[in-house]
């Protein structure tokens, strides 16, 4: 029984406005889903609902064959618009903190998280390891936030505009990391406008109500 992310007749309201309603999706391990649609249609809200940050108005989310004690949200990495970085701390201090703070989502043997140094090398910012995060450029900051996904093992990646502020080389690098994640049995849900740097991706198009 492979692991599956299942959401049934999900609806979400924010500030009294119905953002989306009776949405259903099922994703097996190794599958990726791109959520597309015009701005403000609720792509980010969907990710935040899946992450457990926002209570859905109705419907349920569950991880089949995941870790029973953990909630659905604790299986997920959330990579939002904000980088969650402290400018006063150095790059390594930031990453080391998240490494020891975030509880791993799956302790399966096949799933080995990287060490902070390896993660920085994988994203090409290891030269800035000891520099304060304040001195990083926007693209480097995004890559440092991405490094957080590599250092803690969580099966589901919720990515909000993952390719924004990344240059071509970094985008290709991201594509490799995502395919490695899928190959190792992970799940990816990405809200994005551009095409995903991945081979085959399912798409979910959110439509504004007629």
């Amino acid at each position, binding site marked *: 029984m492979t692991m599956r992310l299942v959401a049934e007749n999900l609806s979400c309201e924010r500030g009294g406005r119905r953002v989306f309603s009776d949405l259903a999706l099922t994703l097996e391990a190794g599958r990726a889903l791109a959520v597309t649609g015009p701005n403000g249609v609720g792509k980010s809200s969907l990710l935040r609902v899946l992450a457990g940050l926002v209570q859905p108005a109705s419907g349920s989310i569950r991880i089949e064959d995941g870790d029973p004690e953990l909630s659905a949200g604790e299986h997920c990495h959330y990579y939002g618009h904000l980088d969650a970085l402290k*400018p006063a701390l150095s790059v390594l201090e930031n990453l080391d903190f998240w490494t020891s703070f975030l509880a791993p989502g799956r302790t399966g043997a096949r799933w080995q998280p990287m060490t902070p140094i390896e993660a920085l090398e994988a994203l*090409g910012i290891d*030269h*800035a390891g000891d*520099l*304060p995060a*304040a*001195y*990083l*450029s926007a*693209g*480097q900051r995004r890559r440092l936030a991405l490094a957080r996904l590599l250092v803690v093992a969580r099966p589901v990646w919720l990515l909000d505009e993952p390719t924004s502020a990344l*240059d071509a*080389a970094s985008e290709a690098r991201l594509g490799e990391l995502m395919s490695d994640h899928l190959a190792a049995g992970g799940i990816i849900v990405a809200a994005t406008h551009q095409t995903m740097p991945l081979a085959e991706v399912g798409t979910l198009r959110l439509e504004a109500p007629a």
Partner: protein
Amino acid sequence: MAILDLANPTRFLALSARLLPWLAAACVIAFAVGLYMTFFVAPDDYQQGATVKIMYLHVPAAWLAMMCYSVMAISSLGTLIWKHPLADVSAKAAAPIGAAFTLISLITGSLWGKPMWGTYWVWDARLTSVLVLFIMYLGLIALWRTIEDPIRAGKAAAVLTLVGAINLPIIKFSVDWWNTLHQPASVIRMDGPTIHPTILWPLLVMALAFTLLFFVMHLMAMRNEILRRRLRTMQLQAASARVGVATPQAAE
């Protein structure tokens, strides 16, 4: 040697490197002479006895506290009006030194007050305005520490320093304006000092020693500040050195 020659940090570093040993030597000699005169030459006060020796620390420290603030006020003018590149470096370097001298004058004053006035602290015009000066020093240091970009921090601190400069005349003339317990001015006066020379000379030598000490520490702190800014620019550069995957040679 117009002030502009000093504008270039590298030339300032070279110049201060040559100047510092002489200044330090002069400062040590001044302190030696001053302390010798304080303990062996100056007579005891007929009322206070030996406790008058505290004056040789308290008065120079208070003078230095105010002189240091004046240096910061002038530097602030340099930052805001003449746009002198080293002005905010000088202001930032002088702040901790000024705070230290103010602290010394407050503590020695309070320790002198216990035997003489019977209490460590009394809310008297002179003491209170010096305490306000101490809070302003700490406020300036805090302001420097909260604004990340040194240029913006320099301008903000310059404005605050100039606004705070109003406090200096209040301290100087507080003893005359309000009937205070504190000793009225007896050295820098319109009609000349009213102290006996044997007590005055050690005081002047100690004041000279303190002033030299200030310049030594101020120059050293300014050098540190220049190095700190260089380090910051190099760190900024290091972060962006290998933005893409290109190697440094290709970028050269």
